């Protein structure tokens, strides 16, 4: 693992965390979808780079899937949904932007602190990669919590999936099974989300989770 390869991998992982922060920051729907496309692009680049370093050809397939599905198809579908739902205007996150950012930084610090005791025995690359992957996951979770809109929650969830891909590919030599399953889950998740969004759209004229809340089975 010559140092150059290590640095490039770190570059991609760091870039992914940065894009996650941008996702947190962005409060406009169309902007959000474009940044998510960028997020998927960075992930696929990092996977491709991992494939190059570990000369594991199957990773290229994952990179291609990630690029094709998550960077192109999903953003395009989301754009059409958003336009049809007419909600491309601003979506105000529940908590102020400043506070979310602060929480995001705290989370990254936490994931690094958690990763420190991991001994060198597990390989330096693995340690940093995991720290970044964990941060992306935590940021994705934070985004799902701080957004009212179903679409933005789905985007948050998919950024978590990207974090997972980063972690999976970072683990050198993980058998192929895992890659396919991750891809498989993205695919299925998309379909399900699509059906739901469409269905929700049909029922309540809006995608705002909060309004959905009123239709709970058991009232207080």
């Amino acid at each position, binding site marked *: 693992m010559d140092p150059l390869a290590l640095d490039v991998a770190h570059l991609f992982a760091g870039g992914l965390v940065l894009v996650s922060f941008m996702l947190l920051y962005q409060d406009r729907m169309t902007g959000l979808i474009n940044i998510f496309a960028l997020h998927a692009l960075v992930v696929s680049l990092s996977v491709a780079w991992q494939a190059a370093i570990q000369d594991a050809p199957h990773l290229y397939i994952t990179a291609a899937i990630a690029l094709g599905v998550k960077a192109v198809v999903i953003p395009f579908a989301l754009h059409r949904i958003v336009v049809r739902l007419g909600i491309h205007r601003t979506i105000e996150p529940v908590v102020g932007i400043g506070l979310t950012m602060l929480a995001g930084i705290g989370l990254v610090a936490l994931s690094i602190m*958690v*990763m420190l*005791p*991991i*001994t060198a*025995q*597990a*390989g330096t690359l*693995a340690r940093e990669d*995991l720290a970044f*992957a*964990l941060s992306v*996951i935590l940021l994705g*979770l934070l985004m*799902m919590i701080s957004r009212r809109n*179903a679409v933005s*929650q789905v985007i948050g*969830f998919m950024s*978590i*999936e990207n*974090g*997972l891909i980063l*972690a*999976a590919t970072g*683990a*050198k*030599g*993980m*058998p192929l*099974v*895992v890659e396919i*399953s*991750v891809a*498989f*889950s993205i695919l*299925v*998740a998309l379909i*399900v989300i699509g059906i*739901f969004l469409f*269905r*929700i759209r049909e*029922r*309540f004229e809006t995608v705002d989770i909060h309004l*959905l*809340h009123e*239709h*709970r*089975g*058991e009232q207080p």
Partner: protein
Amino acid sequence: MSGSGAFALGAILAIPALSAAVLALLPDNRTSAQLNALASFLSLACALMLLVERPDPGHFLIVDDLNVTFIIVSTLVGFSTSVFSASYIAHELEVGHLTPAYLRFYHAMYQALMFGMNLALLSNNVGLMWVAVELATLTTVLMVGIYRTPAALEAAWKYFLLGSVGIALALFGTILVYLAARSALGEGLDAMAWHVLVANAHDFDPALLNLSFVFLLLGYGTKVGLVPLHAWLPDAHAEGPTPISAVLSGLLLNVALFAILRFKSVMSANPAALAPGPLMISLGLISVVFASLMLYRRQDIKRLFAYSSIEHMGIVTFAFGIGGPLANFAGLLHMALHSLTKSAIFFCVGHIAQVKGTQRIADIRGLTASHPVLGWGLVLGVVAIAGLPPMGIFMTEFLIVTSTFAREPALAIVLGLSLVVALGALLRHLNGLAFGEPRGHSDPAKASFLPIGLHLALVLVAGIWLPPALVAWFQYVAVLLN
């Protein structure tokens, strides 16, 4: 590796998969219901055959003592639920809740769920287990949303979001386990096979293992319904069709808990790592206390029993957290008996909801007067689930409380108190439901009482007499879990 063992192993996976595909094409309800029941019966037969001969663990599939118990329980409950769902779905069709198109979808999804759960239980590969649990979750998400009512959709959406987050965390945990194993075992499939992991867990990196266990506990804990992560369970149970709630709380919770147990055995094999006990104890205890208090204000009968499932899963997690052969034995037995009792209760509740046309507890009164069999079935089920003496659950709860008392008396007192609180709530609701004079409209109940009777009989027998072979075998597995 005898031929029939491998054949049984292969069959138990192939049957549900094939029947799922076939059922997706069958338009007619009656034949698909019968095929569904037949497929479940065949998988039960294969499970029993597995009990006799056991193939050696392969790269992807393993049959050891731990998962044979789970397989038998899940195939048994799967079979009885399929028998129950035959009459339930027939009634739903008449009432018009379901259109024939969705019906095909329902039966196919049912068998796909069975396939997912069997695969999860039998898989030797950590990643494969994750995929199987993911498949089972997705099928149940679709099933919960099958009624298309706003409440069902909201419940399904909530279940999907929370489930996916849980699964993501579990995947991250799985990756961490692989990383920890890779440094000791080298790459490849070995680093993810259970029997290999457990064998040399002692020289894994303890810090990585701890982190992985945190993620796995939270990830699969969401599927088990432990308290901070339980939110999807009551709504998913209440809004989905009753056979699904029975399978959900009977089997899916057990499968997720099975996964946690697998990882706990890996964790505890490594002395340097953080002891998994305290984490499980705290989560289990919080779940028991929280769920028993939540029982009081419930207005929906299915949500009432969903919270009771959370409580019992809390008790089982607590028992495994306490550890020691007696607690493990009681935990395993409790899990099996709970899935039998809870599915029996949901069978009753399903028919009651159909007969009374509502799930609101306030509108269901005097069941023993209007529908004696259903009413008394519910009474017996609630008596069993509340842990009253003649039934098996009392014995296991008693064993758990006494073994806790031996180790940490303070916890035993808290556990005992919350069990009593839960008992109070359940009996209060039962009193309203089963006795008094009947109210609200009630059509005649045409339902198959075979599954209810079978399950409750098994639980009653377990309460009174346990075959020595079963006891010895459970104890062996308990020691396995240390």
